[in-house]
């Protein structure tokens, strides 16, 4: 069952809420944003008051947090129907919550220690939640099985890492932090702490590499439009994953890895990639804005868009150059030109959108699968184009009917030709054979009578019978040729015209180009056109000569018959010329008769034969 898009008839319930998003969701998202920002402020206060590192470190940390929160908020505005923005803000809140664990605060006492311990435990969830955001981009929902499996493993790993941190504590950093950087731990044995830290770091490296692989695979399998959406975020996400894996690998290799935190190059690269991920969502935001701008352009232009320009217009508005539009008709789907379009049944809901009512669909959009993640855009474009699509559908239906009528006329002509050929063959193979047999019988009779005594009357009657039989055979042959000349079937148009030109009393100059064998209907029509034209020359024109020119150019057979007669020829209804004009039109050809009085006659016919 394809997705049905219906234009909304009612305004959104409240001006401040996005369409389809209730006010409770909006309040919840606002609360998450405000909580994150408040925690970021509190982190800043802690860093300013008790921090032992340089201000650049704290600015880096807090900027990272703020970027996730703000980007997440903007994404909730752009994609209100998806949980993407909320997930991003939750990641920002988590980063704000666990930031103090890395701050190197120099204040003692149980409250800071408890705070840092809680922050440390939350650190364990940074990786799975971050991976969740990465893998769920851009819809906010992880749709593929590989991604879901990675996430289940990720949250399990987060729980284990948190437990490890709670029991053994973190490895003490080697920097200046000597105070609350070493919070409370249940088991206070350094070798166990080192081993647990190595295990967590190793697991982290494996996890991020697998997650990066899933993102890379998704990118490689995506369609062209989806790749455009995924490209920059995918690169930044994979870069982040690789950097994270490098940090974890170094931690594994060197247990005294507290120094990593101060490795300025690595830290800057990690910061850049982490900030680049939410920044890439900004690009998504810009793209969304461009989509909206394109929809606005469509709204302005749609009234003046011709039905045959509708597909490119919608393709531009949807950012999908391969968009196709199919219009339902009683005889199946057709395109805007009325040509049949084959759609796989049932329609793939991920790639098709049906516009209109279930019972009376107007059109089917066949689009890139990534557009399914942007129902708002599809809805806006579909609603904008609904009237134009309705017009286009009506035109397409008329064109399809016209095409069917043309095809039907061509079939009638072809059927008539087949019938003529069959009749001609039957006359040759049937009646003519019998007449010939009778002729042979009369010859035998004459032979048998030649040695006997017969009356003159018998001999005379026999001779008369043979003469009549010869005349009947000749008439029959002429009749068969008029129905359908055998030479045309056997040898083609040129030899048939050569024989035709020799038969009349008026000299005919024949110029026929080298022709391949053409369709039987085209050959027969061209032959009958020349035949009828020459018959008119003989009967009415009083011409002294006639010229027949036949050539092939631009996929059309062009036939011209002209004479130097008295002109004034008219294709009257019911005349042979009028019948031929109908036959030419049935083959999508053109026939022109130019016959001014006293200036000869030119009959020109052009027939498609591609």
């Amino acid at each position, binding site marked *: 069952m394809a997705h049905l898009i219906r234009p909304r008839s009612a305004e959104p319930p409240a001006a401040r809420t996005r369409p389809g998003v209730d006010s409770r969701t909006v309040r919840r998202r606002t609360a998450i944003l405000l909580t994150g920002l408040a925690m970021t402020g509190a982190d800043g206060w802690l860093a300013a008051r008790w921090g032992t590192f340089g201000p650049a470190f704290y600015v880096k940390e807090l900027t990272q947090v703020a970027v996730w929160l703000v980007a997440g908020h903007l994404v909730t505005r752009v994609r209100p129907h998806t949980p993407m923005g909320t997930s991003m803000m939750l990641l920002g809140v988590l980063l704000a919550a666990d930031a103090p664990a890395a701050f190197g605060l120099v204040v003692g006492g149980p409250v800071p220690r408890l705070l840092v311990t809680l922050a440390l435990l939350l650190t364990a969830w940074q990786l799975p939640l971050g991976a969740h955001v990465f893998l769920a981009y851009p819809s906010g929902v992880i749709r593929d099985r590989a991604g879901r499996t990675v996430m289940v493993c990720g949250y399990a790993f987060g729980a284990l890492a948190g437990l490890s941190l709670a029991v053994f504590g973190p490895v003490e950093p080697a920097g200046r932090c000597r105070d609350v950087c070493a919070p409370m731990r249940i088991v206070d044995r350094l070798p166990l702490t080192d081993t647990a830290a190595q295990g967590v770091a190793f697991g982290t490296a494996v996890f991020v590499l697998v997650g990066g692989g899933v993102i890379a695979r998704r990118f490689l399998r995506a369609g062209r439009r989806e790749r455009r959406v995924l490209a920059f975020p995918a690169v930044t996400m994979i870069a982040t994953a690789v950097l994270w894996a490098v940090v974890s690998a170094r931690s594994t290799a060197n247990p005294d890895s507290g120094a990593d935190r101060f490795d300025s190059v690595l830290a800057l690269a990690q910061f850049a990639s982490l900030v680049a991920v939410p920044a890439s969502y900004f690009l998504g935001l810009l793209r969304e804005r461009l989509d909206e701008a394109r929809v606005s352009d469509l709204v302005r232009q749609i009234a003046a868009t011709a039905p045959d320009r509708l597909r490119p217009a919608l393709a531009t508005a949807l950012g999908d150059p391969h968009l196709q539009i199919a219009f339902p008709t009683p005889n199946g789907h057709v395109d805007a030109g009325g040509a049949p379009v084959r759609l796989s049944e049932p329609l793939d809901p991920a790639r098709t959108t049906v516009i209109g009512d279930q019972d009376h669909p107007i059109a089917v959009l066949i689009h890139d699968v990534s557009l399914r993640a942007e129902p708002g855009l599809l809805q806006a474009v579909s609603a904008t184009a609904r009237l134009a699509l309705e017009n286009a559908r009506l035109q397409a239906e008329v064109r399809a009917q016209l095409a069917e009528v043309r095809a039907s006329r061509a079939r009638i002509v072809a059927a008539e030709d087949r019938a003529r050929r069959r009749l001609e063959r039957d006359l040759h*193979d049937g009646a003519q054979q019998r007449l*010939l047999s009778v002729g*042979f*019988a009369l010859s035998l009779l004459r032979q048998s009578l030649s040695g006997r005594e017969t009356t003159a009357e018998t001999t005379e009657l026999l001779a008369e019978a043979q003469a009549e039989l010869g005349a009947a055979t000749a008439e029959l042959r002429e009749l068969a040729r008029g129905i359908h000349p*055998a*030479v045309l079937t*056997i*040898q083609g148009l040129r030899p048939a015209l050569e024989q035709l030109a020799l038969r009349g009393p008026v000299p005919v100059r024949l110029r026929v180009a080298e022709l391949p064998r053409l369709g039987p209907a085209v050959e027969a029509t061209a032959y009958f056109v020349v035949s009828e034209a020459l018959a008119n020359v003989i009967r009415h024109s009083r011409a002294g000569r006639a010229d027949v020119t036949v050539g092939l150019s631009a996929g059309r057979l062009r036939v011209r018959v002209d004479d130097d007669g008295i002109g004034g020829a008219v294709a009257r209804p019911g005349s042979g010329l009028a019948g031929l004009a109908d036959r030419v039109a049935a083959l999508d050809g053109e026939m022109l008769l130019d016959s001014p009085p006293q200036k000869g006659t030119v009959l020109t016919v052009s027939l498609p034969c591609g």
Partner: protein
Amino acid sequence: MAAGILLVDDHPGFRRLTRRLLEAGGLEVVGEAADGREALRRVAALCPGVVVMDVFLPDMDGFAVAERLAASEEPPVVVLISSHCRAELGTRLDRAPITGFLAKDELSVQRLTELLSRR
């Protein structure tokens, strides 16, 4: 003239009367065939000296049969006949490995004998 004529035409009445006409003129008709394949079988079995054959047969045309016969070890003389005239059949007649062509309304012992004697 080589011994025996094989007459090939899909119209039985025409075959019967043609056979009588040829035999009345002193020619020997050794067999008849109604189509191209039967003609090839009869030629192999009867070894006629002459094959008088219609151009249009139900299964294959007389030109194709003539080409098959020409490729055999001892090809018979082939004369094609047709209710169509020479002009209608065109240049295929000139290219075919045959001794001659007669329109059916021209077919007579005299014309056939003349044609065969011109070889």
